[in-house]
Every structure is written in C-alpha cells, then in structure tokens.
C-alpha cells in the first residue's frame, strides 16, 4: 500500500517543487531523480501485486490489478528514460531558442504534472476520477505544446486543447450515462462509479443505456487514443511541442487512453452479452491503421511522420482488443508495451537528429550515420523495430494479432497485411536518405545520451526473442482479466 501512495505522491510533490526551482541548471537532474524514485516505487508496487494479487486501497480510492500494474511500471519507466533524455536536450533548447526561466519552470513542473495525471488515471478505482485525470493530462500538456510560442506551436496547442476538450466532454457524457445505469442497481450511490463494484454487477446493468454510454466513451477516449477520424490534434501536438513531450505523449498518453477504453469495454461486454463494443473498436481500429499508414507517405516533418506511425499502431491495438479473444488480447498487451518502448526511443533519437540538422524537415536531415553514428544507428534500428521486423518484439505482437485475426476473421488479415506493407514502405522511403544520404556541409554532432534508447531497444529485442517468465505470467493474468481465459 505504501508503494502505491508513494508512486502517486512523488510526482505530486514534484509539481510543486519544480514549479519553484524548475529554472535552475539542476532542475533536469531533479526531474530525473523524481522520475527515478517513481520508477523504483512502481517496481515495488508491482512486486506487491505480483505476490498478493489485486489490491484495493482502504478507502477504495485506488484499484490495482494485473492489467493496470504493468502499465504503471511502463509509464514510470518511459518517464524515467525520457527525463534522462530531456536534461541535455532542454539545455540545448534553452541555449538555441532562448527559453526563459519561467518557461523552464512550467516545463519541468508540468512534466511531473503529466506523470501524476497518467498514474492517477491508471490507478484510480473511480470512473469519474479517471475522466478528471484524463482531462487533467490535457490541461497539463497543452501549455507545453505551445512552449516555443511560434504561430505553428500556438495553432497546434489550440487544436489539441479544443479537439481533446470536445472529445473528452463526450466521454464525460458517457460517464454520466454509465452512472445513470449503475445507480439503479447499486444500492450505495457513491459506490456506483467504482470499478470493482461495477464489475461485480455488470450483468445487471441496463444494456440499452450502456450501449449509448459506450458510444460516447469510445468517441471521447478514442479522441485521446488518436483514432481516425478524431486524430487531427495528434500529429500537430507531437510535432510542435518539445521532443520529450512527443515521446511521453506517444509512449504514454495514448496507452492510458486505450487502457480506459478497454476497461469500459470489459464492463460493457459483461452487460451486453454480445460483441457490439468489440465490433466498434475493430472498425475504428482498422480505419485508423489503414489511413495512418497512407498518411505516412505524405509527410515532410520527421516528428509528424512518426506520430502517424503512432496512430497506426494505436489503431492496430484497438483492433486487437476489439477482436477480444485471449490470443488477440495477449498480442495487444504485448504490443502496447513494445510500442511504448520503441516509439519513445525513436522520438528521443529524432530529437537528437533534429538538433544535428537544425530542422525537423525530412528533406534536410541527411547523413546521420556519418555525422553521429549513435544517433543514425539508433534511428535505423528503432525504425526497423517499429516496422515490425523480426526479431524485435513488435514483430511478435503483430504476428500474434495476425494469427488471432486469421482464426476469427480470416478475410481481415488481408487489409492488415496490406496496411503493414504500406506503413513499412512509408517509413523506409523517408528513413533511408536520412540515415545514409550525403552529409551536408558543417553538420556537427550534438551532445546526446543514447544509453536509454539502446536500453529500451534492447528490451524490445529481448521481448521479441524470449518473454521473461514473470512478464509472461503478468500478461497472462491481465489477459484472463480482460478476455476471460488464458492464451497459454
């Protein structure tokens, strides 16, 4: 229990601390230490849950089971590695873009603020608080997207604010409808939004109300997942904000939004006794997957390109969760993990690449391997991994999803394979000249700490070759929770 509270309190304290000292040179280090301690407590929490099973805090405020505990660890890990990257990166940005001390205070404080909202959304037992945290995540990051105050950045932030705000408002309406259905069967009103209570009485909830609630929740949290056609904010927010922001938005926010959606689906499935929720998720997922793959080809900005790749992968995961069986769910959970690790590593590398070239335009980024081998190879390996090459973990999870599709919806494997090929081509036509092309004159290496990137890519490789026993057991438990039976 202590571990759980600490995991939430450290980032909360971090918001306040960094709001005052965020402009100091040491602030980057403080950020690393805070994220590091959160990571350690999250591991401690994971061990507790691993030994003792599902955990509900005394006031029933927090609820930890096999599904969210691994996302908590993943969130804390990516936050730590991104914090390590952010320290030298933001120093470079402060020097080249002349960011004021006030903005650095905002940046560091809201970095921890974002972590807090993510962890709160994951660990809360209350559907309403989940909504509050998701909205809080938008509020925490929106001023970071406009941190550079260029017209583009302000535009991206405004779009992000309005689209996510409107989207998430739909999710609130869905939550109200859910409460409306729940308070009719659950005797104590204040319990009617608690996950553990809701799951217990899912079968008694009124199906017609829940159907409508699910549609609203799907639109709401789907906006945050970046599902087409609600995705417009995502490439803008990713490309115009500072790169550490892109890494954690892509690696974490999208995951947490999808987590909320899957939690709701588990509830709705229990009430509806049919697969309506799954079918809706499959449709939206497949559409996002295909459309984002096509958009990959037409990008000129490197960060926009990789954010479309994020939409593509989120679409695939939504599709896999929609199929629903144990195999697909296991694949989707694994894909969530490997995508987070790979994509945040890629964004870190892209940040360095953009600093080397002095621009984010793909046409002007050339010869990375010659200029700075660690960055060039990092980008190459990262992209190979995200495109789903064996032996990386993304290959394994995509393969699992494909075989699950083959089993239950054989004809849908065709669009999946076509989509994978399109995305692969889209990534590599841009990647090749960037890493190999001719070096422009006067291009110099930058200070870069590639250790976290290599570490994350090594983990993805490891997951592709052999999933460690404890992790496999975790995924299995989470799969049993979501899909009802074990894939193994």
């Amino acid at each position: 229990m202590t571990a759980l509270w600490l995991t939430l309190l450290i980032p909360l304290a971090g918001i306040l601390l960094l709001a005052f000292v965020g402009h100091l040179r040491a602030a980057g280090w403080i950020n690393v230490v805070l994220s590091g301690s959160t990571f350690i407590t999250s591991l401690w929490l994971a061990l507790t849950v691993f030994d003792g099973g599902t955990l509900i805090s005394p006031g029933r405020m927090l609820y930890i089971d096999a599904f969210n505990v691994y996302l908590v660890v993943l969130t804390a890990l990516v936050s730590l590695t991104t914090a390590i990257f952010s320290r030298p990166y933001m120093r470079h940005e402060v020097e080249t873009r002349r960011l004021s001390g006030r903005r650095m205070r905002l940046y560091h404080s809201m970095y921890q603020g974002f972590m807090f909202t993510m962890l709160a959304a994951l660990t809360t037992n209350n559907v309403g608080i989940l909504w509050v945290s998701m909205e809080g995540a938008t509020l925490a990051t929106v001023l970071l997207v406009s941190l550079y105050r260029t017209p583009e950045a302000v535009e991206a932030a405004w779009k992000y604010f309005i689209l996510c705000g409107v989207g998430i408002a739909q999710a609130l309406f869905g939550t109200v409808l859910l409460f409306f259905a729940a308070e009719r069967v659950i005797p104590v009103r204040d319990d009617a939004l608690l996950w553990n209570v809701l799951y217990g009485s899912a079968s008694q909830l009124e199906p017609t109300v829940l159907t409508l609630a699910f549609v609203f929740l799907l639109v709401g949290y789907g906006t945050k997942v970046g599902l087409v056609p609600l995705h417009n904010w995502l490439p803008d927010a990713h490309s115009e904000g500072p790169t550490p922001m892109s890494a954690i938005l892509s690696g974490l926010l999208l995951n947490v939004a999808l987590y909320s959606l899957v939690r709701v689906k588990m509830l709705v499935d229990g009430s509806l006794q049919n697969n309506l929720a799954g079918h809706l998720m499959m449709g939206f997922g497949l559409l996002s997957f295909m459309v984002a793959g096509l958009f990959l080809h037409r990008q000129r900005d490197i960060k926009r390109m990789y954010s479309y790749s994020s939409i593509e992968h989120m679409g695939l995961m939504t599709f896999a969760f929609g199929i629903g069986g144990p195999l697909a769910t296991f694949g989707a959970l694994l894909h969530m993990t490997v995508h987070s690790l790979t994509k945040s590593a890629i964004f870190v590398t892209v940040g360095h690449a953009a600093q080397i070239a002095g621009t984010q335009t793909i046409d002007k980024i050339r010869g990375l391997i010659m200029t700075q081998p660690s960055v060039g190879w990092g980008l190459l390996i990262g992209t190979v991994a995200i495109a789903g090459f064996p032996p990386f973990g993304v290959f394994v999870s995509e393969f699992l999803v494909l075989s699950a599709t083959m089993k239950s919806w054989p004809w849908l494997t065709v669009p999946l394979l076509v989509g994978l090929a399109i995305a692969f081509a889209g990534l590599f036509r841009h990647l090749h000249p960037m890493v190999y092309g001719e070096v422009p004159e006067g291009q110099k290496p930058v200070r870069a700490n590639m250790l976290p990137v290599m570490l994350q890519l090594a983990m993805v490789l490891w997951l592709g070759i052999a999933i460690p026993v404890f992790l496999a057991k975790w995924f299995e438990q989470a799969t049993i929770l979501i899909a009802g039976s074990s894939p193994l």
Partner: protein
Amino acid sequence: MELAQLSLFNQAVLVLAALALLTSFLMLAQGRKLPLIYTYGWQGVLLAVTTALVAYVTGHTHLYISAVLTLALKALLIPWLLHRLAVRLNVQRENEPIAYPSLLLLAGAALVVFSYYVSLPIVQFAASATRNIIAVSMSIVLLGMLLMITRRRAMAQVIGFMSMENGLFFAGVVSTYGMPMIVELGIAFDVLVAAILFGVFFFQMRASIDSLDVDRLNRLREVDE
C-alpha cells in the same frame, strides 16, 4: 405524458430546462461578444436554480453544494473572467457576422430532435420528473458543439466549449441527482483550470498571429503539398 398531470416541481424543472435550452439557442445566433458572455452567465444561473430545486424536492442535500458550486463557477467566476479578458483584449464591441443565421437555428432545432430520438430508449428508465432532461442536456452539449463549429473567433469557441460543460453538468445533476461529490469537485476544478488556460491562450494567440481569428491558424496541414 400529460404535462398538467405532473407535480408543480416537475413542471418547474421542465420550464427551467426549456429556458436553459433557449439560452443555448440565443448564444447560437449572438454575434456580439458581451451579450454572448452574459447569456452564458444566465445559463449558469438557470442550472444553479434547477440544481437547488432538485435538491429541495428530492432531499439530496449534497446537491446544494453542487448548486453553490455552479453558481459561483459558471454564473459568476467564468463569465467574469471572460468579460475581463474581452475588455483587456479589446474585443468587447466586436460583432462577428454569422453566416446563414436562420439555417443555423434550424440545424440547432434538428439537433434537439436528434437528441430526443437518441435518448428515447433510455428515457423509459428515468424517473418521470427527469424524462425530458436527458434529451435537453444532450441538446445543450450538441448545440455547444455547433456553436464551436460555426464560429471563427476564439472567444466564441470557448463559450461553446463551456456551454457544453454546462450541458454535461446538467445531465449529471438532473438525471442522476448528481455524481459522487469527489467526481463533481474534480470536474469543477478541471473546468476552472481550462477557463484560465483559455485566457492564457488568447494572449499567446494574439502575440503570435495578432488576432483571435482561428481561421488564421492554418499553417499545419494533414499532408504537405
């Protein structure tokens, strides 16, 4: 359902809900900034009164807190903030032309019909007092969205956004007699922070594009030609 057979309380709730819906329509066709903000404030007042009425009749005392919260936040604080911003940004006399106002109002009416249609299967589970409320609150949400879509000025879009939140809150209060307190407080906090951030954005926007016209935010494209 014969309206005359309803108790006085139910009729009062219906009248207030109808008035709240009316304010949404008023906002839809209002091009001037200050009347727009005042209408938004009146919507907040109506919601607060409805909440207090529901609290009085049903005996859910925690709803009094919600009513006070609504009054403080949505009828006073946020309209005051917006008013101050409008004056400081010197847009208070601006009159934004509205293209096809009659068509817009018809579209709004269509949205109300749509809301009634969508909520039809749910309404049978509601207490008789609140049957219409789900449809009305959904209409307020959709009309807020319509307001955001049809306007080009950042200020009007923000009012559309806030009016959507009003509709959501209304749904929560009247159809379910309020969400759990902690959730309501959390939502109120989020709305307040959002209002403040919108203010920050107005200044950032004016500093970067020298206008509050969101049509001029057009540099980012889905695909690059």
